[in-house]
């Protein structure tokens, strides 16, 4: 059911781990729903110089975390903020419809980590442009997200 890219990122996750003195940390999801992602950022001169993740979740959740960290590494915070769940899913060569929420989680995790950094640095957190505009394709009766 998963693309080769997803399987590759699941079997060989990039940037897995923890940054003990992270400049920004984001955590999204909840254990009841079966997925939690934690994103750690090191930011230097507005640039993400290091990023790590910890994920409790399915194959798609792990692969999305891995891919998302890859996509934002070396980017400015502004650029990283623009990485959408769709971009994550596309970089993974697609996700099954019921797994699209995993890519949403990754986007949200990055946003939280960036805002955590901003708040710690006395900046206004950026607002989610349009919290419901994610490319979900999930189930209509979705209760966890």
């Amino acid at each position, binding site marked *: 059911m998963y693309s080769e890219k997803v399987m590759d990122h699941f079997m060989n996750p990039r940037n897995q781990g923890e940054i003990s003195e992270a400049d920004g940390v984001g955590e999204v999801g909840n254990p*009841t729903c*079966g997925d*939690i992602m934690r994103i750690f950022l090191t930011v230097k001169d507005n640039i993400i110089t290091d990023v790590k993740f*910890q994920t409790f979740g399915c*194959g798609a959740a*792990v692969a999305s975390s891995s891919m998302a960290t890859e996509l934002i590494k070396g980017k400015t915070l502004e650029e990283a903020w623009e990485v959408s769940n769709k971009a994550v899913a596309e970089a993974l060569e697609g996700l099954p419809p019921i797994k699209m929420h995993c890519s949403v989680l990754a986007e949200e995790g990055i946003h939280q980590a960036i805002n955590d950094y901003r708040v710690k640095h006395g900046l206004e957190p950026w607002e989610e442009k349009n919290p419901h505009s994610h490319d979900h394709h999930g189930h209509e009766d979705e209760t*966890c997200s």
Partner: protein
Amino acid sequence: MTAERIVYMDHSATTATDPEVVTVMIPWFSQGYGNPSSLYRIARESKKAVEEARNQVATALGAQPDEIYFTSGGTESDNWAIKGIAFANRKKGNHIITSAIEHHAVLHTCEYLEKQGFSITYLPVDDTGQVRIEDLKAAITDQTILVTIMFANNEIGTIEPITEIGKVCREHGVYFHTDAVQAIGNVPIDVSAMQIDLLSLSAHKFYGPKGIGALYIRKGVRIDNLLHGGGQERRKRAGTENIAGIVGLGFAIGRAVSGMDERNKRVAALRDRLLAEILETIPNTRLNGHPKERLPGNLNVSFDFIEGESMLLLLDHFGICASTGSACTSGSLEPSHVLLATGLPAETAHGSLRLTLGAENTDDDVDYVIEHLRKVVVRLREMSPLYADHKKRSCNV
């Protein structure tokens, strides 16, 4: 990338058709192909083969051959039993009792009937997955027409107190259907001693072919047809008979039942060792289901801090076939209704792993699974924020 070795421990999902079963089926495709409803010789031979299989099924259940009806599988049998009883006995009452841990073939059928105006009681289960007889007694009203409770659960393997349930139902004059799809060949069954009125089974769970099953309907039970059409199965189940499938089912059930004691002893011993080593060598792990009253091959354990689908993917990488109660494999977002019904928190349900052993598993398989399962759990915990927190908490203590 793909493992050379396959260790199949998902026998509750389906089993390989025994090659000897396939051998007895083969002649009924291209040689004995006559339609049993026709009257020439090759048709009479098909008919005879069907009737012989019917005898085999009846013998396995302690039933009469004319109480056995062939269907396309467990799902059809469950649908037929429940809808057929409901619609035929609507005048007597509109209340049906089932349990919270039934297979979806039963649960979704009951939900369908709810929309048709029936009232359904979903009995809770205790933390081992068993229905309580007092709850059943308390639930029966003068409107109750059917109790449908599974013989053994497909996820946690818990065996229900069928004899007691049968007794209560008979005393109250209420029909008793049991989904025995997981029980055949694993538990001795006698429909008359157990006072079962209807029983569903499916061949592919006991080394028979997929797409064929049966429904036992005790003589005298009032039931509507589900599939309308030709006069097959004594006018109760229309459709040209799947002769090869029926022959395979008959042969498979005969073997499943005759070899039961020996096989179960062997399989349960492997399962027990597997369980003991898992619990011993992998911390933060618990057994789900009943400690004793469970299917001989069933093992269902939860590993804290990790999620089931990712376990399955890694196990698959090593050629190990298993399943999980995590939502993530099922296309739904709720974890297993069975695990939740036993009181397991959703989080723990997401981390559940079901290993169901079968006839061909060996001690080597058990060693192989333990070795790799251990690695898989370590690897996923390493990745897990929940485990990271746990470690920190432990160190702080």
